Every structure is written in C-alpha cells, then in structure tokens.
C-alpha cells in the first residue's frame, strides 16, 4: 500500500499540490485523472522520488520512501513517461532491455521476454527491435515506453498517460492487457490518464484531481453514480454513465408507485381503474405488497366471465426484475421476451416498482437529450 499524507509540492512560489492524501491499495489499478496541469504527473514523479515533496510524506507499506534507496525503489516500479522518454541513442531493443541487461539477467530470457512484450503491444519484433526511436511513429514510441516499464517485471507500475497517442483498437487491447495483468499477477498500477472512458474501463478506483486538490477518490461506479460535486459531474460527463450502462440500476429509473389492485378486484373495477389512472396494466398485490401478477387490457378481453377477479386474470409466465438489476439485464430480457411491462420485486417477493416500455424509452432517451429537457422530465417519468 502506498500512502500519501498531506503531501504538498511547490515550484518556486507556486503551489502545485496542496496537502493531498491518498491510499493506493495493493493489487489495484488506481487512476489519477483531472484537467491538464492539475498535478497528476507531479504526483506520479513523487512516488518514485524524481521529485521531492515540499511537505508531507509518502510511505510504501508503512516505510517512508525517503528511507528507501532510490535505485531500489525505482527498480521496483516500472515507469511509463508521459512524453515517451526513449533514449535516442539506443536501439529499441536496448531501450527495452536496458535494466535487464544492467541486472545481468539470463540472455535468452531477456530476448524471449522482449519478443513477448513486443507482441503484446502489437509491434513486429523483427522489424522494429533494431530501429532507433526516431524511426518510429508517435504511437509506436509510446508503446515501447510502456513495455520498457514492464520489462523488468516490477511489482508497481506507474503509467503517465501511457496510451494517449494510440488509436482506439490498439488502446483497447492494451487496456485489456493491463487489467488482465493486474488481476493475474498481482500488480499495483498507478495510471494517469485524461480519458474518462479509459479510467472507468480500467480503474479499480479513480482519483479525480483539480488544481492540486483531490476532488473525489472512489470506485468508478460511485463516481459515476454519485459525483462529489458539480465539477466532477461535469468532468465525468453527465451522459458518461451510458458508456457504463451496467451502473444504471432498475431502482434508478423504475416507476416507483405503479398502479396496483387487490387480487379480489373484479373485472369492471379493474377496467375502471385503468381508465381513471391512464394505464394499460395493473399490478395485482396482496395487502402485504407481495406481488401476485399483472393484468392488462388484453387479459380483460380474454376474461369473458364478467365476475372474474384480478387474481384469475393475471398473465402467465410473467418476468420480474430486481431493483438492483441493471438496465442492460433488463434490455436483454425485454429484447428476448418481447414484453412491454415488467414488475420490480424485492428479494421477499414484494412489489417495489414497475418497468414499462415507455418508461425504458424515456430512460434511454436521456442520454441523447439535453440536460434541461431531461431534468424537466425526470419527475414526470417517475410518476407515470
């Protein structure tokens, strides 16, 4: 665990980081994100002692890093540098292998490792290993920077905007690689990015910074669902959550007070209820709110007996949703089963809400409609 305690950094008189504290947990991928110039790189460089904090202290597993030998500290940490930082006088191979070579690792192992890494970032080892950095494109250089940090198989990896110059396909592959890496081999990764999609995709926890302060440090889900303030919400992007629809839960958008009736209500009363409350569906519940079933106009038609009661008219095979199902689950069901309405039931079988097609449509349309409209609709929808 890496801990920052009240760390402040000043350049000249300018305060760049202002008493920030954070815990970076082991085997997690922590993302630092924030607007340009907020101090992400500075924070990262303090972790491997390229920059000394003006105040405060940083510990790794409880040991002040000032007490750890610099070189040892840095060899334990891979470091991907923001602007690449490849050595122009070395071939790509030497750039990648420099630390391994210095540590006199087994030759064959080095070569194998390099080839594996090159393949991981989708660069042809044959073609590029003997080139010099100037012969590579921007994105290719960046990838070399990334694998240089991995070559020595460090426990901690610091990555400063490692994929900023990559196209979406390559980038997405690499993101997956890193998530896998962290999970399979227990790496602690600190990852700077300015791309919220990326952050949400890879992060275990996200630290949102601004002007040298930490605004929020939490899981992606919490940040998406409960942004700490307007700035975070805005930075994350109000519609961002649609890029992670699994965080949109049924309880967030279901109709919370659907129109219900007692199981003993008769057909006429049912029809009357539908008309008076402008709905096509009634939910049949016991007095203790246990869901019995659902009836619609169709069922009323089919029920030829004038005295049929609600309990007898309910649809068969009714699908139900749970309040913490997410919208993707629901859409999949809706899509598969071609149904329009779906009651929401808690663990004990009690009715808590209702999902309808139009309710889904209006939820889904939120991502495309502008804030104001949305806001205005919000209440309306939840009352339908």
């Amino acid at each position, binding site marked *: 665990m890496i801990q920052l305690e009240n760390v402040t950094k000043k350049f000249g008189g300018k305060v760049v980081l202002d008493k920030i504290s954070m815990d970076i947990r082991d085997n997690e991928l922590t993302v630092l994100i924030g607007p340009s110039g907020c101090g992400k790189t500075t924070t990262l460089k303090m972790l491997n002692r*390229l920059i000394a904090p003006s105040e405060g202290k940083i510990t790794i597993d409880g040991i002040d890093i000032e007490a750890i030998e610099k070189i040892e500290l*840095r060899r334990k*940490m891979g470091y991907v*540098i923001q602007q690449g930082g490849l*050595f122009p006088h*070395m071939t790509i191979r030497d750039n990648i292998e420099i630390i391994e070579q210095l540590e006199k690792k087994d030759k064959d192992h080095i070569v194998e490792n390099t080839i594996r890494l090159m393949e991981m970032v989708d660069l042809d080892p044959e073609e590029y290993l003997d080139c010099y950095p100037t012969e590579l494109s921007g994105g290719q250089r960046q990838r070399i920077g990334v694998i240089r940090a991995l070559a020595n198989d460090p426990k901690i990896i610091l990555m400063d905007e490692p994929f900023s110059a990559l196209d979406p396909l390559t980038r997405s592959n690499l993101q997956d690689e890193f998530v896998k890496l962290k999970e399979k081999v227990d790496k602690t990764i600190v990852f700077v990015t300015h791309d919220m999609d990326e952050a949400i995709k890879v992060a275990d926890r996200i630290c949102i910074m601004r002007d040298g302060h930490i605004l929020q440090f939490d899981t992606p889900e919490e940040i998406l669902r409960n942004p700490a303030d307007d700035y975070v919400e805005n930075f994350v992007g109000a519609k961002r959550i649609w890029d992670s629809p699994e965080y949109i839960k049924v309880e967030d958008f279901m109709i919370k007070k659907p129109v219900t009736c007692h199981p003993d209500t008769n057909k006429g009363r049912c029809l009357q209820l539908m008309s008076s409350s402008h709905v096509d569906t009634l939910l049949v519940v016991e007095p203790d709110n246990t869901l019995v079933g659902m009836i619609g106009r169709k069922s009323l038609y089919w029920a030829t007996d004038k005295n049929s009661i609600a309990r007898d008219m309910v649809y068969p095979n009714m699908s139900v949703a749970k309040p913490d199902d997410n919208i993707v689950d629901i859409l999949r069901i809706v899509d598969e089963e071609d149904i329009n309405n779906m009651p929401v039931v808690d663990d004990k079988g009690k009715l808590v809400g209702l999902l309808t097609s139009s309710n889904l449509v209006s939820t889904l349309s939120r991502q495309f409609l502008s804030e104001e409209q949305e806001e205005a609709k919000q209440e309306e929808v939840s009352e339908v």
Partner: protein
Amino acid sequence: MSDLFKYMAENSSEIFRLLIEHIELTAVAVGIAILIGVPLGIFISYVKGMSKPIIGVANVVQAVPSMAMLGLAIPLLGIGVLPAVFMVTLYSLLPIIKNTYTGIASIDPEMVEAAKGIGLTRGQVLRKVKIPMALPVIMAGVRISAVTAVGLMTMAAFIGAGGLGYMVFSGIRTANNLQILAGAIPACILALLVDFLMGLVEKLVTPISLQPAYMEAKAKAKKGRTRQKAILGVAAVLLVVLIGNSVIGSMGGSKDKHITIGGMDFTEQFTLVYLYKYYIESETDIDVTAETNLGGSQVCRGALKKDEIDMFIDYTGTIFVEVLQNDPITDMQKVYEVCKDEMYKQNKFILLNQTGFNNTYTLATSKEVSKEYNLTKLSDLKRVAKKLVTGTTFQFLNREDCMKGLNSKYGIKFKDSKTLDGTPRYTALENREVDVIDAFGTDGLLKKFDLVVLEDDINFFAPYYGVPVIREAVLKEYPELENVCNKLSSVLDDETMMELNYRVDEKEEEPEDVAKDFLKSKGLI
C-alpha cells in the same frame, strides 16, 4: 619544393625515427590527458562547486607560456621524456575537461530524468546516457587536444626527449628552412593521422543514431564499422608495440650496475655515445643507457649536474671558451688542463683523457692540389698561398682565430678568397674553382670527397678535442670506467671519426650499427 623532397628523402631514416619518438610521446601524453581529463570533466559536472576551481586551474595552466613551463618544469622534473610528457599532458587537459564538462552539462535534463526514472544508478546514467549523448562534444575536445599535443610535443626536443621538434629546432637554429619543414610537415601529417584515428574511435563509440545523416547510410555504417575496427585495431597494435618497446627498452636498462651516457644533437655525438656504450658494456658488467639527442653541450652539462646522465663527451674548446669564458688559445694540453681543473673545481666533473679527434676548424684541399703544390701542412701555405684561391664560410674568413689570424700572425695571404657555404665548398673544390676550403676536423664530407686535411703543424687552430666528462661520484662507484674509456678514447682519431660520420651522414647507416661495426672491426668487442 623538390629541394624539400630531396632533403626529406635523404633524411628519411632520421625523420622516421623522430616521427616514431614523436608518436610515442604524443600518445602517452594524450592518453594520460584523456585518463585524467575525462573523469575530471565528469566529476565537476556532478559536484557543482568544483567546476570553477578546476577549470580555473586548467585555464591557468593553459595560459602559462610553454617556454616558461619548460623553464619551470626542468628544475622539478629534470630533462627528457618525463617533463615533456608532463608538460604536454598539462596543456592537453583544458579542452578535454572543458568539453567533457560542457557536453555532459548540456544534455537534455528530461533525458536524464527519464534515465533516473527507470531506475538507473548515477553511474549507469552516466555510462548509458550522459556519456554516449555527450560523446560528440567530448571527442571534439579530445581531438583538439590530440592535434594540439602533436604540435606542442615539438617542445620535447628542447629537453632532450626527441621527437620531430629536434628537426624543427635545429632547423631554426641553423636557419635551415628545409630542415624546419622536414620536421613540421611530418608533424602536420601526424596530426591529420591522429585526428583521423580519433575520428574512427569517435564513430565506433558514438551510437549510430547520433551520427549525422545516419539514416541513409545505416546499412553502410554497419558495414563500415568492421573496417573502422580493423584500422583502429592495427593502429592500436602498432602503438602498443611502439610504446611497449620503449618501455621494455628503458626497463632493460635498469640492471644493478648501470650508467647513462648522454649525447648532443649531431651525428658525431650519436656515434660516440654508442661507441662508449658498447665498449663499456663489453669490457665491464655495467649496463649503459644511451641518452642521445640532448641538445647542445649546455644541456648535457645541465643533465650531468642533475645526475640525469652520468657521462657525456664534451669538446675541450667548448669548455674552455664557452664555459670558462676564456679567449681561445691553441695549446691543446694547456686547454685540457685548464678545463680539467676548472670543471672539477666548479662541478666535481672529471675529464677523462682527451680523445684523439679534434673537431675544430681545419683547412683541406684536394689530392690533386696537394700533389701539385706539395701541400700537406699549414706551414706549407706560407709558400704557396699566393697561388691559391680559398672557398670558406663567411665566418671563417672574418674570425681572428681563422683566416685573419693566418694572415696577421703568419703572413699567409691567398690569391683570392671566396665565401661559400656548406656542401658547395666541396663541389667548388672538386671543380677546381677554389683550391683550399675550411672544414671541421671530423666532417664526414672530408672522407666523402677524399680530401687532404692540412696538418696543423703551426698549432694555429684552437683545439676542440673530444673528451669524456664524468661525475666524480660515478667514477668512484665504477672506477673501472676510467681505464676503459681512456682506452677507447685513444683509439678515436680524426680519421676514424671522419669515417664514422661519413657512414652515418652519407651512407645513412644507423649510428648504433656503425659504432658496433667499428668496435668489432677493431677487435674491441
């Protein structure tokens, strides 16, 4: 121009020898300067406070006039290779230190940060990043130093360390432009060679990507490297052999019983040194180092005083006139005795017996003329001078102890006197444009043109007999030297030296070989 070629061709073996010496000296000096300068430059780029004082010292050293430096170094380090190398090393430091410092200090700090960031130690940052990236600048400094050192090393000749400077300075002393050029041109060529080799080194150690325009030439460059390595390899081997040789040579000289014989910087002295060396070595179990080419007699005397050499062959006349500041007199025995006494009094130097050769002014004539006028002795001149035309140097004509004296003291008056210089005198004599010429007693040309030297039966010319001078302490340690030297000295006469000089100068044999040859032929070794 063609004169120059001729001169150089004629003296090619000597020029080559000096060139080799020069290369050895320069290589050692520059090597040391690199070994000191580069680390120092690196050091001061790390330790901030040190850059000013150290560059300051290097600046000061650089500003000391080289002559003054020599003047100051001799009392401390004596003469020979050591002070020469020391001096040139000192002068070579500034460009190396300064460029190393500048090169390293002006590396992009972000590059250094990257290197640190990925976990290189200070030393590794230096070796892997800073030095390779600063290399063009460092090598520029080294190349400046190396080339400058080639030029500076000519100073070595002033203190008997040899090298091409010997040609240059003796050329300057004798206003012989050909000789100056014969020394300076090889030095220039050597400079180009040194720069070329350094360029190869630079190319080899500089990462290809930092070399200008490597891209187009990438494939070529890789191929080229093999050839470069080959060239450098050969050069390195040569250098090692050269230096190794001289090191072993000088080590071989440090046996238990051991003396050093010094010699001045002209032909006769080279041969003399080897004559005594080989003879002593064969007659005694003393090991002799030959320290030839020490400059004038002044320098030899200085070296003797400072125990740097143990013995050398001086000339009585030189001691009498130059050291003791007497007016020249003609009595060879008296001259010898005065010299012997005074030298002992003043310096505890012992003059052994005089040799039989007298390297003074003489007059010479052709066999033909000699027969025609029955002219073999100076006194004969009284009789026939009126019919003869002389061809002499301007100096000979005007000196009281030369032509003027002949005239005033002995009433010898020639028909006509022409002033001529150097070899032309001999040719003029051969063509009978003149009948009598002046010469030095042991000049090889006398032998070459097969001339008759007029015997000085009137004791006219001041004596300049060769005489071994040895320190008292040395003689006490090796008393056997006295007899040995005297025995050899008695064998050496004008005739012999003339012959030997002739072989070295005209036949271009090596003085060592000539000396050995002679001693063998006489059954002396």
